């Protein structure tokens, strides 16, 4: 199990999942449900458990999980309508990692498809552009932890590229490059954002 030592994989399993106890639970009334009046948890009780407790209990048919709030019908409606603007982090900081684990357990085809669709939409409409660029990105707060890691992987690499390209360029005079940039931009060259970003970068360094 190569994910055993992975911090995010661990934290994703902290997500609360509503379950119904099919069997009772001896001595754990209060532990499983603060409102419980008896020492033992009675059969049929609905409680919220952290996900890490669920798979084994489910395998043994001791609990039946229900869909957690973060995968509610309404969530998918928003994701479908405006994939770029959905604050997935607010629904669940480990939206995809937890989602993958949860579908693996339930084998819920519909949920599986929704997750894949959501990832694809967010990846192409939000992540690619932001990850392979160094210009300011204002939507970080919308990202799940997994998306944020992808974003940083891309941006770190872009930043390292700029650092590399303009390192030890003491002799590269600003005047030359910036002047040339302006000339070309005025001439209707493409990609002004990117070039501007690089120009700025150069100015800062020299």
């Amino acid at each position, binding site marked *: 199990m190569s994910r055993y030592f992975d*911090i995010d994989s661990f934290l994703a399993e902290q997500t609360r999942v509503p379950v119904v106890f099919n069997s009772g*639970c001896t001595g754990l009334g209060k532990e499983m449900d603060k409102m419980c009046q008896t020492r033992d948890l009675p059969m049929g009780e609905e409680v919220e458990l952290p996900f890490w407790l669920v798979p084994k209990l489910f395998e043994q048919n001791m609990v039946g999980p229900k869909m957690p709030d973060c995968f509610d019908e309404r969530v998918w409606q928003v994701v479908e309508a405006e994939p770029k603007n959905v604050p997935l982090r607010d629904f669940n900081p480990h939206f995809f990692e937890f989602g993958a684990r949860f579908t693996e357990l339930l084998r819920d085809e519909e949920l599986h498809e929704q997750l894949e669709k959501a990832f694809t939409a967010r990846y192409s409409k939000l992540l690619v552009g932001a990850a392979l660029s160094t210009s300011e990105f204002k939507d970080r707060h919308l990202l799940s932890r997994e998306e944020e890691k992808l974003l940083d992987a891309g941006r770190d690499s872009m930043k390292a590229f700029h650092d590399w390209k303009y390192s030890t360029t003491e002799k590269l005079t600003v005047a030359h490059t910036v002047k040339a940039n302006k000339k070309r931009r005025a001439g209707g060259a493409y990609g002004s954002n990117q070039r501007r970003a690089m120009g700025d970068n150069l100015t800062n360094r020299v």
Partner: protein
Amino acid sequence: MSNFGDKAATLVQDISQSEKGTIPPYNDELVRAVVDESNEHHRSILRLIGDIQEQGTSLDAAAPEDAAAILVHHQAVLRNKRALLVYLNERADRVRALRWEVGTALPEDLGESLSHSERGYFQQYSALVNRYQGRRGGVGINITLDPTPPKEHKVQVRVLQERGELVTRDGTVDLAKNTVHLLWRDEAQPLITEGVVEMVV
């Protein structure tokens, strides 16, 4: 709503939120608490098993509510164990990185952030890398040098700490304070790491 595993989660959360490349103080208190909680769960498991056996029932025929309770406690111990290991492992990664950053001597202020076992681990790891690099039984090349590809082959350095004479490939150099020298990159690098000299750009 169960609060099993909450302490464990705090332990992992803390290390996860700490700045990359830093080593926050070892949280001995919380580690102990998670260990104690695990032993408490384990005692509950033994109690439940004892009760079942007392009734003359074999575990095979245990009532589902007893089995469920055992399973919950069991999973809780496993969860705590994983938290402890995720915490220890992430810290161990950072402790090892020190060997490559600061060399074989653990800086005092950092040493205070480590547990007793972590300090031992650092010493052992340090020795392990030394053995691997050694001439006898090792590969015979210092592999902590050149973390990035060589660029300029000579670098200009200014002496920050009086060091006296240094024998280099080009002959002997007197490292008197504030003097400037042109050194081979690989010979300068350990001195830069130690803070004896700084690079002059």
